[in-house]
């Protein structure tokens, strides 16, 4: 199915969610790395750039950058500039945030915005679309 083993970085503070996504993606042939905190994710991405980043927006735990900020920082790194970012969040699109969150290349490298809960068909289709770009 997947010819090259694409590397996907999953960033989410929900351990169960990371586990489920990792299992699903690996089952269809992706190589999956993960991080529970944004700082950690940026660090990992810099040390070993992934082919795609799957990113949550809101993070529990110590104060740090949110998903949007994280994607901006990644985008700011020259080596990671072209890496597509898919946001997968429990945040209900638009209603929960005071700013526009439509995918837009102009200001952040988000290629898709998925709302939890997402079904595997939809998630895999969006990942395939982002990687195919």
């Amino acid at each position, binding site marked *: 199915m997947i010819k090259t083993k694409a590397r996907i970085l999953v960033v989410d503070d929900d351990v169960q969610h990371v586990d489920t996504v990792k299992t*699903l993606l690996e089952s*269809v042939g992706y190589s999956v790395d993960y991080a529970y905190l944004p700082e950690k994710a940026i660090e990992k991405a810099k040390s070993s750039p992934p082919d795609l980043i799957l990113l949550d927006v809101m993070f529990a735990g110590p104060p740090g950058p949110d998903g949007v900020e994280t994607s901006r920082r990644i985008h700011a790194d020259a080596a990671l500039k072209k890496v597509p970012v898919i946001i997968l969040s*429990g945040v209900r*699109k638009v209603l929960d945030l005071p700013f526009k969150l439509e995918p837009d290349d102009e200001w952040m490298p988000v290629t898709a915005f998925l709302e939890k*809960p*997402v*079904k595997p068909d939809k998630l895999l289709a969006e990942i395939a679309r982002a990687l195919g770009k």
Partner: protein
Amino acid sequence: MKLQTKTNIGIISVFLILGVSAAFMTFKWQNDHAIKAAENRVRLYIRAGWEIYNSKIERIQATLKVLAEDQRLQRLLRDHADGALLDEVLSELQAIRSDQNMDILNVLDSSGRVILRTRHPEMRYDQVSDDPMIRKVIKERRGCGGTVLLDEKRLGAEGQDLVQWCTRYGGEAEGMMTGAAVPILRNGKLIGIIQMGNLLNGSVEKVDRIRDSLFENEQYDGKPVGTATVFMRDLRISTNVLDQNGARAIGTRASEEVADRVLGKGLSWTGRALVVNAWYLSQYDPIRDPDGRVIGMLYIGSLEKRYLDQRSRAVFMNLAIVFGGMVLAMTVFFLIMRTILSPIRRLYRATRRLSKGDLSHRIEVRSRDEIGELSDSFNYMAEQLLEDQLKIQQSQAELERRNEELRVTNRNYMEMLGFVSHELKSPLGSAVLGVYSVKDGYLGTLSEAQQRILTSVASSLDYLNEMIKHYLDLSRLEKGELKINKRIVRLKEEILEPSIQGLMPSLEDKQMTLESDVPELFALCCDPQAMRIVSENLLSNAVKYGKTGGSIHVSAMVCGDQAVFTVMNEGEGIARDKLDLLFRKFSRIDQPNTAGKKGTGLGLYICREIVEQHGGKISGESVAGKWTRFTVSLPGAVTIH
């Protein structure tokens, strides 16, 4: 119209009517009375005039009576030829005539022949028995006084100078004489007559005496107050009426009307008469000779202007009194009205203040009459209103407080609901992804039983998801956090398509077809995110309650100034009486076709809230067993690009 204006008009009308009637009555009474009084006055004047006229005659008669007793006169009558006696008597009588200022003094024999004529002693022995005065004395053997006409012959006999005198004033050789004749008796036998008289022609003594005793020669407004005239027939022979030149109007004639009545019929004439140049209230009486023939007229006139002016003054005085009284009465009335009306006006102002909400205003009660009672009642009413208002304010405050408590409770509840729902999303996210990954075979093939159980679990998770979404929306709505930011939105691209995307799996599951005739460019004015919640809810309902294998139809149109879009699905439909219940919070309809289908009972409530916050309307219609259709209409600037 104000009460005061009404009463003013009323009372002024009453006063005016009374005033005008009183003035009219006064005027009428004055008029009638003044004229009657003036006429009566003229009647009195003429009676007095006659007294003066006759008193002279009586005096002559009295003088003659004394002379008739004179022995020498008797002797002379027996012997006319006694020259010495004649001269003696003549000179004595001449002295008397001159002294009495008489025109004639004659001694006649018993047949009426002149024996002695004092004026012209040479003329004697002529017969004057056609003189009615003489005739009467001969016949009745007693004295007779009065007025007689002297014809030309008689005048001539008395003296040519008298003829000339009379013609000077009238053109007719005729004279009118007042005087008397008295019989001279001896032993009861008529032996002669003595006659003395005065010609009235040109003589003013009599009329001036009448005028002076009645009117004291008074002038009014440059005119004599009264005048007297003696007419010979209709000719003025003795008068103090002055003509235009200021001369006595002797020689002029009376009017035909007067002459007809007085001379012709022998009656008095009373009325207004224009005498030379002024109106006089006049009376003309006939003058008769001893035979009773009308030979002239006595006239007395009283200046009318004096009466008219008196009357005018009286009328004016009366009117002044009437109108003065009216003004006084009205002033008193207005003052009384003011004292009555001013508390009414105070009451009126007070009710106005009360109606504007000033409940603390009270009226000062000054009188103990009905107005005072009314003011008391007003104050009592205001007091009650104030108390009631305080009570209402208290209970309103209480209500407000409780409402606030309820709001806080509700907000807390909604906060909690939102928080819990949100917290549920994360675990639900991994649960859905996990279950579907297994169910859809990504992690290996499943047995039929495994597949059935997982399908059921997945369905429960979907319901849970729907519930969470609805509770989050509800929480936002109830907390008032849902802000509507309207802009022009393309219905198909920005709202319908994203909503349909999430529903594709369910549509496929139920083998339903979705038809849309919404034009690409159809636009409406709304908050796109909020409207997406509406369209998602309507569409997911259409899928959930639609007939398996049936179709869903979405359409949009402009209807007046409204943008309308509808979602219609084939299916069992909803009973008409239950359609409205659908839009209530937590409403669930128990119908055979909904059995076993889970719902939160919030979807349509949320839709209605959002649509109404847009100022629009949402409604449902259905034909049982055939279809259900929901229609959303939004107002505002609708443009189709």
